[in-house]
């Protein structure tokens, strides 16, 4: 346990400079935008005179220099103040906190689903590389891996929601249905079927391919040869030796894909009108809301760091070799 605590501390300390780079670069990028939030706001209310604009700029601190504003942002950040969303007229942190659970539910379900199905099919394919079953699964996975999630979402909703009317087309739950408890849970789950499938399919194919590749490699290794020489049952070799060897890179892949999946949720949430974190990013762009966009990028970076930390901890728990050298140094 002590080893993993050290790992956590090391990783958290190492992530501080990285986050500072993220904040600085994003801040500079967003500041170079022609026109600021005040312009966008004035445009949305149908214009206003220069004095009003100046007053608003002073109120939001937009009249100061770039470095001064960056410093202001960082000191506010130290108090967990992510600033004020101009488009929504609410604190950024509260807005993100409100939207994040929907996205976490979406991503969590998609990850669990794709991991379970992908690794199971990967074991089927990798149990006998180059067999008919393997070739079929590999070809299918290549095709599935090439389908963009947003298009798949449209096609699925066209077939399952519009034509067959089995599932709701959009939203996270039925509005003002007054459902509570289990009914509400089932309602949300029904709304999540299409977005989760659209997001998960590409990762199912990815996990299948990674699992299969790892198993193909494992078949040539000495310990598998030894297990076969010992005369172990084939199913036992496949599950206990070959698949187990291939499982570790699969978990690494989980961490690597966290950022991509978060990015993918932007389009999926926009299609299915899910009020989540990704859709908030799209709304921030549409509303030219720099403080909100800044907060979204920062929170997504923190999320990715947390996921990677969890992946590292899982790996350290599964494989005692990992982290042993780090902890002793």
């Amino acid at each position: 346990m002590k080893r993993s605590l050290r790992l956590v501390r090391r990783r958290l300390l190492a992530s501080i400079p990285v986050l500072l780079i993220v904040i600085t670069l994003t801040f500079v990028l967003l500041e170079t935008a022609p026109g600021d939030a005040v312009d966008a706001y004035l445009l949305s209310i149908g214009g206003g005179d220069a004095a009003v604009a100046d007053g608003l700029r002073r109120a939001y601190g937009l009249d100061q220099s770039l470095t001064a504003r960056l410093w202001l942002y960082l000191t506010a950040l130290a108090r967990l103040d992510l600033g004020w969303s101009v488009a929504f007229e609410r604190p950024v942190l509260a807005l993100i906190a409100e939207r994040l659970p929907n996205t976490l539910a979406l991503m969590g379900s998609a990850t669990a689903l794709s991991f379970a199905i992908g690794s199971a099919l990967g074991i089927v394919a990798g149990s006998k590389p180059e067999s008919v079953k393997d070739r079929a699964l590999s070809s299918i996975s290549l095709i599935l891996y090439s389908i963009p999630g947003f298009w798949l979402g449209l096609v699925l909703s066209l077939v399952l929601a519009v034509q067959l009317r089995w599932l709701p087309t959009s939203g996270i739950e039925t509005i003002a249905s007054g459902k509570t408890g289990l009914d509400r849970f089932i309602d949300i789950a029904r709304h999540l079927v299409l977005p989760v499938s659209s997001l998960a399919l590409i990762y199912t194919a990815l996990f299948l391919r990674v699992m299969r590749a790892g198993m193909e490699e494992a078949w040539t290794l000495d310990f598998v040869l030894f297990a076969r020489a010992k005369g172990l049952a084939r199913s036992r070799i496949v599950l206990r030796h070959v698949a187990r060897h291939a499982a570790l890179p699969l978990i690494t892949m989980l961490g690597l894909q966290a950022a991509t999946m978060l990015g993918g949720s932007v389009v999926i949430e926009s299609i299915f009108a899910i009020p989540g974190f990704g859709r908030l990013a799209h709304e921030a762009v549409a509303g030219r809301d720099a403080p909100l966009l800044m907060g979204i990028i920062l929170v997504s970076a923190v999320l990715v760091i947390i996921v990677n930390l969890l992946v590292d901890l899982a790996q350290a728990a599964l494989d005692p070799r990992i982290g042993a050298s780090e902890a002793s140094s």
Partner: protein
Amino acid sequence: MKLIHKLIRTPEGIAGFVILAILIIISASASLIAPGDPLRIAGQALLAPFSDMNLPLGTDRLGRDVLAGIVHGARTSLFVGTAAALAAITLGLCVGLIAGLAGGLVDEILMRVVDAFQIVPGFLLALAFVSVMGASLPVVVIAIALGAWADPARLTRAQVRSIRERDYIAAARVIGMHPAEIAVRQILPQAVPPVLAVSATIVAAAILTEAALSFLGLGDPNTVTWGSMIAEGRNVLRSSPWLSIIPGIALVTTVIGVYLLSEGLAKALSGTHAALTPREGERS
């Protein structure tokens, strides 16, 4: 040449090669197949595919020719995909080479920047970049490259660090070769193949990112893209689903072609690599 020969001997390689060759021919002759502006009104609105032989794939809500959109969209898709991947790989190679060779503080700083680009979701970064710079084709290319260069940089750095310890580099140093010459002529050629092996994946990801960006309305408004066609068709998804389905099929076919080529390339490269450096692992 030898590589291409090997490439087309793998079944994946030949399939991908054929798909991409057809796409390249189509996009190169886009102005011949569908002359004129693909965004102009060509006929009656919402014409179903195969109902009028002059407009074989039908028309969209504004009466624009879908075939012209697909053909010109292929050009955009391939251009943005390859340009963004090229930019990302070049930047990644440079940063990885400098970090791997310099070591010390320079390496530390560069790798923290790489970390920063890796933990920010590439799509969010592209979204932010396009919204700040305004949507145009070059901006979209840079936006996608910004989210994609970190992986090749990390890969190159690792490769450079292992190569620089090899005997032939020490030998080059001993005979007094200039460090810059060692970097460019001795180390870089060896560091490129692994990056090349993942290049097709970067192209495919870039094509998909471009499609997603223009689907969200953040592409160049004056260029036809498959993503914007899918988004446009979405408005009439119930009555005219083909408007979203056709460009989607074009997109999936392209990406499949790139992945097939990538698999073939990986097989061909692993073949040549094994032939060039036998038993690399046993020799330490």
